[in-house]
């Protein structure tokens, strides 16, 4: 039973570490998706566990919103690449003290 929860935690942690350690913005995006979907999976699992379909309905909504959000993110990413010629996060440090 708790296997699903453990799996989700592992997936989420992988995503979190990906965000923290990678410098490539594209990969960071993918890691964020991984975290998001780990949560989705957890929602689906709890939905089954409690025999309540609303959890799964939630997941559909989240996926739709995430798709829209990732589109905007990728568009921004393309603009960054056009301006800087790279997609490394290290080049985006201008907003500071």
């Amino acid at each position, binding site marked *: 039973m708790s296997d699903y929860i453990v799996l989700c935690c592992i997936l989420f942690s992988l995503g979190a570490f990906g965000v923290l350690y990678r*410098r490539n913005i594209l990969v960071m995006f993918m890691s964020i998706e991984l975290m998001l979907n780990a949560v989705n999976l957890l929602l689906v699992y709890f939905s089954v566990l409690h025999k309540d379909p609303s959890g799964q309905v939630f997941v559909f909504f989240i996926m739709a919103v995430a798709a829209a959000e990732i589109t905007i993110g990728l568009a921004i990413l393309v603009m960054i690449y056009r301006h800087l010629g790279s997609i490394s*996060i290290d080049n985006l440090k201008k907003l500071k003290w």
Partner: protein
Amino acid sequence: MMEFVWLIPALPLLGFLILSLFNKYIPKSTSGYIASGMILGSFLIVLSLLLKAINGNLEPTIVTLFDWITAGDLKLSLSFQLDNLSVWFMTIITGVGFLIHVYSISYMHDDEGVTRYFSYLNLFIFSMLLLVMGSNYVVMFAGWEGVGLCSYLLIGFWFKNQNYNDAAKKAFIMNRIGDLGFLLGMLLIYTQFKSFEYSTVFDQASQIINPNPHGDSGIMFAITILLFIGAMGKSAQIPLYTWLPDAMAGPTPVSALIHAATMVTAGIYMIARSNILYSMAPCTLDIIYTIGTATAILAALIGLTQTDIKKVLAYSTVSQLGFMFMAIGLGGYSAGVFHVTTHAFFKALLFLGAGSVIHAMGGEQDIRKMGGLMKKMPITFITFLIATLAIAGIPPLSGFFSKDAILALAFEASPIKWGLGVFAALLTTFYMFRMLYLTFFGEFRGTEHQKHHLHESPLLMTVPLLVLAFFTVVSGFIEVPHVFIHGGDWFSHYLAGAHIALPEASHLSESTELILMFTALALVVSVIIITYVIYVKNKVLPATNEADLSFLDKLSYNKFYVDEIYDAAIVKPIGVLSNFSSSFIEKQIIDRFVNLSGKAVQFSGKNIRFIQSGDVNTYAIFMVLGIVIILFINLVL
């Protein structure tokens, strides 16, 4: 008739609004006529009320204009009390006020601020009317503060002179001390009677049965003494009198109107209005008598040696106000109001006469530099002489009757009180005739230029003098002692219609009363002769050099150093305390705290800002760390 009552204060207010809002568009020559017209309008309405009151047709009425404050149990309306007392004061205020407005048109014609002057004057009449017309203590207080403000504005009318500004501030602050007493007294009345309305308060007060008929109930003593402190400030009694002589910095007609005829008598009005409360507090009455007598004598002693014509009159005013309080302290409310009436006429006349003299002398106020003005200014001289005889108490002028009424009351209380009253009256006679002789008799002592310039004042100034002189002569006949005419004492009976307590019937036999009257009169006449010998026959001039004065003269000339004592005892310590507060408490303690908090923010900002590195990964690590910590706290702890 009653529906026009609101116009009485509204007209001066309208005048004030017009003159102050359209100050720039009104030609200087017309502003005086607008202001005078407004007062004349009020005066005519008041006159019709007065006729009704004299005929005995004026029932005490309350005219409510609108609800002013409604909060919880408190219901306060802007309403006017019309009865014999308030109508009497309204007549004095608008009547004397109108004459002084007319006089001012000529007196102030070449002043650049003449429109401002008349707007203040109208505002003053409005506030004063509010004070006497209000049917509750709050409306009276509003007027009370209003007249204080106008007094401040008019004393400091020539605001480019710093001394005048200081005098204005002194008057205002001294009045504030009194006002605090008034305010506290008023609030105490509310806690006691749950109302500010005169009718409710007096009805309830008269139902209280005093358990100790020869002493005071404590609460009544507190209320009356607090109200009296208010009167002390406004009516310039010891210890709050020193502002009035300094108030002479204002234009002379202002001194006549505000600082002699009307505003300073507000205290008398207030006590006469609350006489039911005062009758229940004999201790307060004793205090009032003592302070009144002390003021009358002290101010008269100071007046003996003053050399500024307006200062002499100012101290004379303080002294006469002392007389009024003496009367009230003896339970003679109507005698006090009677003296207010006659004093309003002769003191306004004296001030306006002095104004006429100052006008002719080109601004000179020192009586040592005058003299011999009799021939050059006959109308001023005659009217001034009438007023001087009146204030000295020569029959049949008004001052004789009002002063005699007070002295008779005093004798009934005790012969010593009579003696003190006569002493003050003799001092009054002395300094008034000293001033009269120095100003109008003998040789002219001013410069050649001034001598050439001397002239009688224009008609707009002399006509008010003549009108006031007429009333100075006749106004005494409203209360002829019953010794002379059976059924005299008209005025006390008139005031009784406004619930002013009559003094207890006189126990004095008619012969005693006549003997007292003639003793006083003989003393006054002999003082006049003595002054004549000193100042006209022997041509004694007050020394110009202070070092030549004898010790007593010096004491009196320097006003018994009261100003200096106040300065040393109150002003200086407060100054020291303020300096200490500003240099130590403010700069060393408060400022340090304020600066410290500022510096702390600056310091932390300078150091903490480096967290904002711009590095996304760092932010992410902080975020994750934060979440981990929160989870740790929530789950584990």
